């Protein structure tokens, strides 16, 4: 079946009334799951799985996929309004989204997030439709040296995320790298930095760190600043609650960047939405004409990561549907669901079960439209939450944070950690240490260390393996260039000073 007739067949399946309803149900559930921190799409799909056994496979996978990508739409809501990331892939959205909200552009930020999600989500599905087989081959060609280079490229972004002082940024990054090494080492099964605490054997949950440093730290800082009387500005009128033409124009490149970065990183079995959202944000800031506005409420800083984490869906489904390889928790559960319905996910699925494959692909075009329609009208509604006086708002933020941190693991110990990271976030903002590099180190450090050790084990200890392969060599050089940018700036200042002093 060629692509055009396949897709037509897919729409015939996806537009059956029952399947449209399943698509809507999945998207709605996904949006709710996305908004609730601590409740992730993987756990939701797992809990709903027994209910889908009697469903037709096409309808079932359409609904489960709806939960998966719907959660990524919803994840930005609490990031923007309350500085609490709803999903790990929406952590970067906090950086500029919350700042936009503080400037009275909460509605605009939510609108941009929804539009970016729609555009990039659709681009991701187009990619899945048109280029799935070659992209799958590309993903398989990625070996550990390439993953190492990709993570290095990500870590080099610290230069762009550091703000005024690179030294403080690097210290913050190092702290993140250390925190991510806590727990059991995969290679030796030995524990590291657990201080005799068996509860730390599994490491620290990313959401606990992110919620603590961002949400709790922010509230503590605001309380001290005496913001009791100040209410965040929420402009009146529907039009002021949506992004204006200027903001949308500024995001043109971000939509494209997020779409492509998200799709390509998403198709790698060791990639994922969180990493792709960071990289898209970094690229956006690197090419921006006004990088100084990032972190202070730049609309592109919302559009790029929100786009990336939605384009990631199409990417992640490439290895799942063409090769039968899951690239993360949610896709792994969707894979086992397919097996339970009697579909055989693997290299032969496209030919043997065209209803499921093309039905799912077509339903995702529909799902993205459904989510846009579902999310845009909610924007003004959600923006109203900021009208609450802070003595109501701050306890709500604390409450959601605690539920979110506890919900991820169900351990009281994590609430203690949450308090600790909240105090850390507060101290860092008092001392003017940027928190973004810490989060960056935490996300990438683990994967980078693993990729390096895998590379060296494969090459029997030969470091040259990292630069002998073309893709990894290119990415490592790019990382080096990014790292050297501040050095050039510093040399330039020295030169200018020398000229003026001599002149």
């Amino acid at each position: 079946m060629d692509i055009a007739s396949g897709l037509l067949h897919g729409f015939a399946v996806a537009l059956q009334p029952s399947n449209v309803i399943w698509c809507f149900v999945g998207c709605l559930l996904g949006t709710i799951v996305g908004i609730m921190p601590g409740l992730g799409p993987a756990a939701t799909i797992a809990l709903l799985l027994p209910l889908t056994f009697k469903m037709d496979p096409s309808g079932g996978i359409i609904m489960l996929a709806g939960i998966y990508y719907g959660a990524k739409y919803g994840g930005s809501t609490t990031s923007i309004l309350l500085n609490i990331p709803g999903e790990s892939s929406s952590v970067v959205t906090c950086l500029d989204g919350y700042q936009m909200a503080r400037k009275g552009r909460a509605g605009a930020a939510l609108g941009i997030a929804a539009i970016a999600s729609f555009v990039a989500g659709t681009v991701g599905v187009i990619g899945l439709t048109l280029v799935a087989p070659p992209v799958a081959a590309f993903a398989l060609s990625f070996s550990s040296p390439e993953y190492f280079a990709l993570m290095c490229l990500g870590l080099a972004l610290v230069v762009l995320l550091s703000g005024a002082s690179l030294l403080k940024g690097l210290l913050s990054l190092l702290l993140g790298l250390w925190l991510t090494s806590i727990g059991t080492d995969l290679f030796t099964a030995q524990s590291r930095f657990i201080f005799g605490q068996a509860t730390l054997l599994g490491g620290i949950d990313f959401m606990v760190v992110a919620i603590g440093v961002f949400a709790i730290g922010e509230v503590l800082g605001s309380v001290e600043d005496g913001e009791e009387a100040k209410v965040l500005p929420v402009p009146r009128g529907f039009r002021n609650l949506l992004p204006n033409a200027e903001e949308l124009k500024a995001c043109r490149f971000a939509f494209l960047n997020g779409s492509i970065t998200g799709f390509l990183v998403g198709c790698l079995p060791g990639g994922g939405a969180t990493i792709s959202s960071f990289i898209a944000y970094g690229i956006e800031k690197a090419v921006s004409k006004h990088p100084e506005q990032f972190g202070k409420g730049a609309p592109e800083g919302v559009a790029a990561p929100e786009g990336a984490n939605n384009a990631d869906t199409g990417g992640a489904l490439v290895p799942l549907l063409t090769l039968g390889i899951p690239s993360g928790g949610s896709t792994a559960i969707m894979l086992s669901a397919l097996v339970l319905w009697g579909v055989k996910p693997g290299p032969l699925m496209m030919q043997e079960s065209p209803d499921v494959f093309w039905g799912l692909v077509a339903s995702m075009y529909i799902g993205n439209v459904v989510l846009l329609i579902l999310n845009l009208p909610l924007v003004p509604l959600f923006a109203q939450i900021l009208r609450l006086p802070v003595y109501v708002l701050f306890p709500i933020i604390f409450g959601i944070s605690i539920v979110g941190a506890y919900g991820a693991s169900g351990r009281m110990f994590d609430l203690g950690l949450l308090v600790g990271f909240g105090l850390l976030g507060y101290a860092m903002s008092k001392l003017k240490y940027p928190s973004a590099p810490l989060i960056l180190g935490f996300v990438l450090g683990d994967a980078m260390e693993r990729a390096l050790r895998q590379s060296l084990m494969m090459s029997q200890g030969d470091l040259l393996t990292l630069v002998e392969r073309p893709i990894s060599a290119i990415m490592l050089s790019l990382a080096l260039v990014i790292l050297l940018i501040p050095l050039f700036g510093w040399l330039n200042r020295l030169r200018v000073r020398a000229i003026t002093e001599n002149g």
Partner: protein
Amino acid sequence: MNRRELLVGTASALVAGTAGPAFAQFKPARPIEFVVHGGPGSGNDVFARTITTIIDQEKLLPVRIQVVNKPGGGSTSAAAYVVSKKNDPHVIACFTNIWLLDPLVQEAATNKLLDMSPIARLVVEPALVVVRTDSPFKTLKEFIDAAKAKPGALKMSGGSITSRENTVRQLLMQLTGARWAFISFPSGGERIAALLGGHVDMMIVDPSEAGEQVRAGKLRVIAQVNERRLPHFLDTPTIKEAGFDIPNVPQMRGVVGAPGMSAETVAFYEDLLLKTSKTAGWQKFVEDSQLDNEFVKAADLKAFLTKFEGELREILKAAGAKVVR
């Protein structure tokens, strides 16, 4: 998370048949807690929920049985919880190999499986030794000969150093003197992608995970890690049949009670699980996920676990892991 672990959810929809009430001296007075060491959706969670669904649908218990998730630190959080419920006859847990392994290699994991009350082993999970179809190795012997010729040059992908695939590798290397590298990857998807992409030469994998790749002609099975041949792979020898006489390393799932459980209570749960494993739903589920029904009763389980723990300790030492107990 690997595919087999997730597959373990089928039975809930497929249960049929009848069973009588359990006659034993112990009578549960309140709902039973069934502890698992993974979060919702993890392999053990789905496995345990399959069991509870069958028990509910077949009305095998006069009280409710509910899954309690205690994730964190491999099995350590769950083990600590079970031990904290000492002498409580209403707390049981689903164990796997990791419950034996964690206390062996982790100083902080102080709660040993053998200090609890073993009730029954339910299933063992077979595995396949696979290579790419375009690989020069047609048999396990060819792979091992090549590994002997160029020590350390060949590679296999797998999980942690304590995983079953590494245990099998260690045993094969000790027997033959061959040497090849073991590259750890956190997820099943990355392991199989490394093999398909040509970055490693071999892997030991669940049949449910590799079956489709084999059918599509991407992977070739060169041996089976099991006591006997699997119905889907009757043409492929087991490792022993291939001429390598190493002990079989079972990957098991079973049920254990809180410490201090009386013999009557253990007998009650043993009977309950035996009835569960006789249901049509259970049989269908075991077949679909290509598991082996290997029911071991409480009386034999303790001896089996003690022996197996000793074997694992020696294998881990030989593998270079730091064994603390």
